[in-house]
Every structure is written in C-alpha cells, then in structure tokens.
C-alpha cells in the first residue's frame, strides 16, 4: 500500500502493519488489480490482444493475464475484432452470462464503430448491443493502447463514485432497446 492512496489513510509509522479502510475501497482495489479478461477475439485485434498478453507488453503486470475464455469466470469482456450482425447474438449471449460486476472494452475501430466496414453485414459498433466502458481507437490498436485502456478502466473501478450495475460509465449512452435481449440466460 503506498501512502498516496488517500482513501486508505494509512501511515506506516503510526499504524504499523494494520490498515483501516473502507470495504468498498478494498474490494475495488481487488477488482481493479485482477480484472480477468474474457477475450472476445473476433478478428485481427485479437492478435494484438495476444501480443498484449505476451512477454513484451505484459498484461500480467495488471493482473489480467488470466484470459478466461469462459464468461462465468471472467469480469472484463474485450471485444477485439469485427462484430458482424450474425455474430452479434453470440456476443450478447456471452455478455449476459458474465456475472456482475462486469465491464466491456471495445478494442479497435471495428468494435467501437464498425470501423472501415460500412456495409450490410457489420454491426456498426458493439455498443449497440452491450454497454461499453472503454473504447480503444486503432486498427489494430497497439498493445500499449490496450494497456492504457485497461488502466483507464482500473481508474474507473476505484473512483470515488459508487459502482452502479455493470460498471457503466456515468455519461455513457445506453445501448439501444434490447434487440437481442430475448436470449438472456440466467
């Protein structure tokens, strides 16, 4: 624990090895330092996601090397790649199966806005079906950009505001009326 964390209020010389803090702070600290990604790697951005997980750009420094491919065991869905309308249902289902609290990073141009594919088959942004916490620009974004997005998300996780459901950023626009919501799996 560093002394710059003001919400902890911990001074080693006075309190020794005992820390007095709020449960929210501790839980958020745990959550932010162990965000287990669920890689929804659909296209080329998945390669950069893998690169972020490998040794040069180590995502393990942030506690996120545990890339669980099961939505039941992860809390961060990284949508890396082009989401077609055909795949949108599967993405939504996977998102629904994740347990709260959960976050979504839209990695790359295709996941954020449909990218260069302005066509009949590509969903113009995954935020039309799931609420996105952080968008990463790039085609593909460099692994450092993904790590930057992860750090921004971590800051959001420990922000002073209480976490609301799904960890949706406060000013974020809600997804459109749930077009694939019939597939909700409890």
């Amino acid at each position, binding site marked *: 624990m560093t002394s710059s964390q003001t919400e902890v209020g911990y001074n080693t010389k006075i309190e020794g090895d005992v820390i007095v803090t709020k449960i929210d702070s501790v839980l958020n600290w745990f959550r932010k330092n162990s965000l287990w990604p669920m890689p929804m790697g659909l296209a080329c951005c998945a390669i950069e996601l893998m690169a972020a997980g490998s040794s040069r750009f180590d995502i393990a420094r942030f506690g996120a090397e545990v890339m669980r491919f099961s939505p039941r065991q992860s809390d961060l869905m990284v949508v890396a790649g082009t989401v077609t309308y*055909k795949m949108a*249902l599967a993405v939504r289902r996977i998102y629904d199966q994740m347990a709260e609290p959960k976050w979504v990073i839209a990695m790359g141009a295709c996941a954020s806005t449909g990218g260069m*594919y*302005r066509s*009949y*088959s590509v969903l*113009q942004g995954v935020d039309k079906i799931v609420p996105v916490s952080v968008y990463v620009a790039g085609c593909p974004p460099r692994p450092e950009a993904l790590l930057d997005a992860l750090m921004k998300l971590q800051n959001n996780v420990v922000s002073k505001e209480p976490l609301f459901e799904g960890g949706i950023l406060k000013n974020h626009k809600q997804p459109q009326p749930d*077009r694939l919501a019939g597939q909700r799996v409890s």
Partner: protein
Amino acid sequence: MSNESISPARKYADILQEAMGSSLSEPMEFRGECSLTVLDASKLLEVCRHARDVLGFDMLTDLSSVDHYGSDPRFEVVYELYSMNHHTYLRLKISVDEEDCEVPSVTSLWRTADWHEREVYDMMGVRFTDHPDLRRILMWEGYPYFPLRKDFPLEGKPTDLPDTAFTDKAPLEGGPFVTSGGKPDSTQREPRAKTFENED
C-alpha cells in the same frame, strides 16, 4: 495456325468444344486464358463430366457468379477448372435468367462446389438443383435479401429476425468512395462520392 502458337488452354478448349458440339460456344482466349460458354443448361453436367474425366480437369478451383444488372439473362455462373496433370486452367460460363434462376449443381463431380454454390445462392439468389444442402452460408437463414446483387445497396437494408439477428443501414456519410481509373490525377480519380441509381 502452327501448333506452337496455340496455348495449352486453347488446345483443351478446342477438344472440348469439338466433343460437345452445339452446347458450347467458340472458345474465347485472352492472354493465355481460355473461356467457353455453355449454351445449354441441361448439358452442363455432361460438359463438366467430360472435362473432368476425359480431359483431366480434375480440380474446380473457383465457382462464382456475376450480376449483369440490366442485361438479359441477368446472372452468369463461372467455373474455373484446373488440370493438375497438364497444369492448365479452363473457364466455363453459363448464363442464368432472373426468372428461372436454376443451374444444375456440380457437387456430384467436385465436392468443393458444395460451399461455393451455397455462397452463390446466398449472395445472388441463384439456386442449384440436386445440391445436397442448399442454404445460406454467410448471412443467416431467414435473411430476406441477396446482398451482392447490383440493386442491393452497400449500406444494407433494415431487417429484424427476433431471435437470430437484426441489420440496420450503415451510415455511409456520402456514399461508397470508389475510385474510377483512367483520369490524369488523383483528384479526378477519387470523387467525393459515386452513387448507383436504382429504383428503390
């Protein structure tokens, strides 16, 4: 015409045309590639079987379709054959009407035609008789349009199949920005937008 100046593809095309007679057109050659048009759809399987068994074109490398929007017949299905023993390519084309959109399937001759014909059906709407499993391959079953037809817009049309998928029109911001060749500088080659007039 001496023998050295005939390309191998033209040689096989000539043999095939002599064997099949009036159901094939004259071979058309361009830069060493040879195409034949099959004039009679009911003879397509016979022509293909002859090409495969007698002439040795044992590999179907590609099967695709063309939409000549505004012409009659509207569609054309193109078969690219390759002979692994003679190292030659041959192209067969067959025209398909818009109203009677049926072509015999060559799946019984080359198994690879299975998915290629499914793609042609999905994108153009050309049906193949005797196909083992003719259903959409890229779009989902129940999608009402055929996307690669010339009168289907690039941005798509809104559809909704509640438990399967939905589509929306993609924002094109002025149209598909395609280039047109042959102009002296890039400003004229790359117009701001190129629109395609259609009736819808």
